Structures are given as structure tokens and as C-alpha cells.
């Protein structure tokens, strides 16, 4: 097998306040793979993604992957994180600007990225003039503008309504099928994870750890019919089961009053 796009070996993360966010996490993502991380709130999904991106240091273990500043990497944060003083075009231009490319020289990649998220016509709008879903799409366009090969997405559709979410899911999958990025996708939503992924990693909290790994063996392109198929339901049930088992295990560990600083 080719060397992984990104790999974590026995990674621990302990925050300054003593919170053990991750313990002994080992995982690898292959090039071109779409991997989802699911787990309860606070189990360390965002932490994993941030460490993968080189934001913050591990407390133990090793990460192999692109360093911060690597042009292959793009990150979509849980919130849109747009610069309110800049127009849509200027926001999408940012990664290129930081590479020293002028707006004039970046016109065509910016336009291409905006087209991919269907935001043509809003180039000169300011973030406050956009809806929540549109802001998120600007954020995605900003991630796509550098043509990244590794895309880290932290609940990008978490704040959206069900209709926008499923539409963006479908469109993201289309893009992935065409461009074959490596994607690590964090979500609370089991259906979203199953629909999008090659592989779903299930996490549990306190401390954050992997409890299961479910390969989704369904062919691409995946259509709407897949979302209602028995196979889809089977995977969703399986992941729900792993999540519940993870919660129970967490509860067993914390029979004494929970203290984040105590290692089990």
C-alpha cells in the first residue's frame, strides 16, 4: 500500500488545564480516501483535525503529514471564519494572497472556486450580506482555491438546515468523485458520515479514543437511492451501536465523579 496521506501513531493530547483530550490514538488516512470522524460532543474530533493541520503540538506520539504552510493542505473550520471587512472575492483570495499572488493574477482560480460552490454573482458582497449557508460555501471556496490534495473539514455543515446540508453533501461528494482529494471529515451526523465516506471512525470521550472503524463498502457514484437503501440503514445502525457502546464504556470509567485531570 502507498504511504498514507496522513498518519497518527499513539497520539496523546493533554491541554494545559489537564484535560486529556486524546489518548493513544492511532489512525492512517490513505491518499484519495474520504474518512469521517464521528463521536459525541467533546470527544476530541476537532482536536484530532487541528493536530493533523499542525495547529498545536501533540503531548505524546507522532503525526506524519503535511506541515503548516503546506500548500497541499486546506482546512474548513466549524464556523465560516470569514474576514468581515473583506468581500467574498477578497476572502477567497486570502490563501493565494498569503502566497504572494496578487488579486489580478488570482482571478481565474478564485472564479473557479466560486463557481464550484455556486456563488457567482456574490463576488463583491460582504459576509454580513450572506446567509449562514452562503458563508459556509465561501469558506469552502477559500479552501478549494489552492487546489489542495488534503482537505480537513470540521463539521462544515453542522450549522445548516437539513435541506442545505443534504444538498451540500451531494455536491461535496460529486466534487470528491471528480477530483479525488483526501478528505478527513468531522461530523455529529451518522447519516452524513455513511453517505460520504469510504471509512467511518467512531470515537468515544474521556479520554478521546477510537472505539470502532467501519468501512462503507458502497460503490461510487452514490445517489439519493443509496440514502434509503437497506445497506445504508445497516451501516447507520452499526455506527449507532458503536457510539452507544463507546458511551457506556465512558460511563463505566467515570463511576467516580468525573475529573478531567485524572488519567484512567
Amino acid at each position, binding site marked *: 500500500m502507498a504511504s498514507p496521506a496522513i498518519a497518527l501513531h499513539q497520539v496523546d493530547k493533554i491541554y494545559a488545564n489537564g484535560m486529556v483530550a486524546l489518548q493513544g490514538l492511532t489512525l492512517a488516512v490513505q491518499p484519495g480516501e474520504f474518512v469521517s470522524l464521528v463521536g459525541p460532543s467533546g470527544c476530541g474530533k476537532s482536536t484530532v483535525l487541528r493536530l493533523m493541520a499542525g495547529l498545536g503540538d501533540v503531548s505524546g506520539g507522532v503525526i506524519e503529514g503535511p506541515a503548516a504552510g503546506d500548500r497541499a*493542505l486546506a*482546512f474548513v473550520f466549524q464556523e465560516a471564519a470569514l474576514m*468581515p471587512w473583506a*468581500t467574498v472575492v477578497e476572502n477567497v483570495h*486570502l490563501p493565494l494572497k498569503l*502566497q504572494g499572488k496578487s488579486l489580478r493574477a488570482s482571478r481565474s482560480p478564485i472564479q473557479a472556486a466560486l463557481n*464550484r460552490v*455556486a456563488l457567482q454573482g456574490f463576488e463583491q458582497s460582504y459576509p454580513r450580506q450572506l446567509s449562514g449557508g452562503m458563508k459556509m460555501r465561501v469558506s469552502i471556496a477559500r479552501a478549494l482555491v489552492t487546489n489542495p490534495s488534503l482537505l480537513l473539514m470540521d463539521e462544515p455543515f453542522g450549522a445548516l438546515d437539513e435541506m442545505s446540508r443534504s444538498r451540500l453533501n451531494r455536491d461535496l461528494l460529486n466534487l470528491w468523485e*471528480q477530483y479525488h482529494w483526501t478528505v478527513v471529515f468531522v461530523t455529529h451526523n451518522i447519516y452524513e458520515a455513511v453517505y460520504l465516506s469510504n471509512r467511518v471512525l467512531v470515537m468515544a470521550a474521556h479520554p478521546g479514543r477510537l472505539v470502532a472503524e467501519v468501512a462503507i463498502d458502497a460503490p461510487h457514484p452514490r445517489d439519493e437511492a443509496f440514502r434509503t437503501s437497506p445497506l445504508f440503514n445497516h451501516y447507520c445502525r452499526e455506527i449507532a451501536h458503536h457510539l452507544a457502546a463507546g458511551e457506556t464504556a465512558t460511563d463505566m470509567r467515570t463511576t467516580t465523579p468525573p475529573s478531567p485531570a485524572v488519567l484512567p
Partner: protein
Amino acid sequence: MTVKSPPPSLGTDVSRSEGAIAAPTQNRLRALWHPDVIAPIIVGVMALALWEGAVQLFNVPPYLLPGPILVWQTLLTEWPDLFRSLMVTLQITVVAFLLATVSGLLLAVLFTQSKWIERSFFPYAVILQTTPIVAIAPLIIIWFQDSTFVALVICAWIVAFFPIVSNTTLGLNSADHTLQNLFHLYGASRWQTLWHLRLPSAMPYFLGGLRISGGLALIGAVVAEFVAGTGGARSGIAYQILMSSYNLQIPRMFAALAMTTVLGVLIFVGLTWLSNRLLRHWHESAVRREN
């Protein structure tokens, strides 16, 4: 056989509309009738009328309290003298204000570049601010005997520069954390982060500091002129106020006072306008709300 499909895109069924929302056309004449304008004018006119009425009714002598009409007449006759003095004060104010703006901004940037610089120097900025200017103005005027102008500018600068430093420092430090991460991810240099992220984030705070400092620079200049008294070669508006009160020309004193106040208001209004203009596209304080 391959079927060429259009490139996939996210959220394709979005309705298009022009991106820029046209600024609502504003009827300037109608704006004058806005309650924000008309209400304070009514209050002001009523107060002046009451004042004039009381002065006339009780026959208050003008050296105790001149009526507004007399003040207005004095203002017109004394205009050349008073206006020249006001311009001297304005000059001091403007120079001190510009110095405060530049030094405040630079110092704030320096503070945010190194925690150690901030730790070491910020307390002294505070000390400079909390020392009463009336108490140190005589010293400064003695030190700069050769040029009263420089002394007065320094006094006004001391009063004006702190709000800019403290506000801008706060602004530079409150750049959105996620955006800071994003800049780091894309390998932004320190300078790029400062220029493209921290400074724009600090803009509203900086402009807020300017609005406070503009008025303070004027107050600082006037106070320092008071302390300098009649010693200075160039006479600012405070000198006129002082001389008028010595000579019991109370209407003239009121006229000079009114001019100073109007100048202060003009400075504030001008800086507010500037702030709204620079922030109108994005900051809550300047954005026209539609809900």
C-alpha cells in the same frame, strides 16, 4: 463513449442577484427632519429662549450672566481676535492629535509584537495617563521655555495618546482566533498576519480611540494654555478666556467658551463621520441595519 457533464458545484439552485446592495438613496432635506436632528435643536432653542427670558426678566447684569443674544453680538464684534486665537489652539490640537495617532498606533503594534515590551512599557503609559496634566504642565512649560508651542503640543499629546494606545492594543489582540489559525495554516508571516488580520481587526477599536482622543487633545491644549497663562508669545483661545475673565468681559468670555465647545463638537462629529465611512461595509457600529 464519454458523456461530458458540467463540472459539479455546491448548492447549484441558488438564485442570483447582484452582489452589491445599493446604498439607499438619502434625501438630505428629509434627513434634517429626522428626530435625531430636530429633537436636540428644539431643546437647545428652548433652553436659549429660557436663558434670555430669565436674564431679561430678572435684570441680571451682563458681568454676572450675559444673555445669549449679547453673547452672540459679542461673538460677532470680537470674531477676528477670537477666531485667530482659536486657530492657534486648533493648530496645537491637530499637531498633538496627529502625533498621538501615529505614536499610539506604533506603540500598540510594538506591544502586540512582544509580550515583554507590553509588560515592560504599558504601566508607564498608564502612569502618563493618570498623572493630572494640570500638575505636570508647568514643568513641561519650564522645560520647553524656548517654544511654548512645543510645550503645549506635548501636554495635549500626553492627554490624547493613551486612549489610542490602549484601544488599539485591545483591538490588535482581539483578532478572531480561528482566523489566526487559518493564517498560521497558510504559512502567513508575522508581518502578513499583522497587516491583513490584526490591523483590520483593530480598526474599529483604533477609530473609537481616535474619537475619544480628538476631544481630549483639544482639552489638553486648552488646559495647558491655561497653565501657561499670559506668558506665551502666541495666544490661544484659553488665553482669551482668561484675559476676558480678568477684565470682567464676561460676554466675551462666553463667546470664546462657546467657540471652543463648537470646535470640540466639530472634531467629534468629523471623527465619527470618518469612522462610519471606513467601517460602513462591515462593522456593526457603522452598518445600516435592516431588521
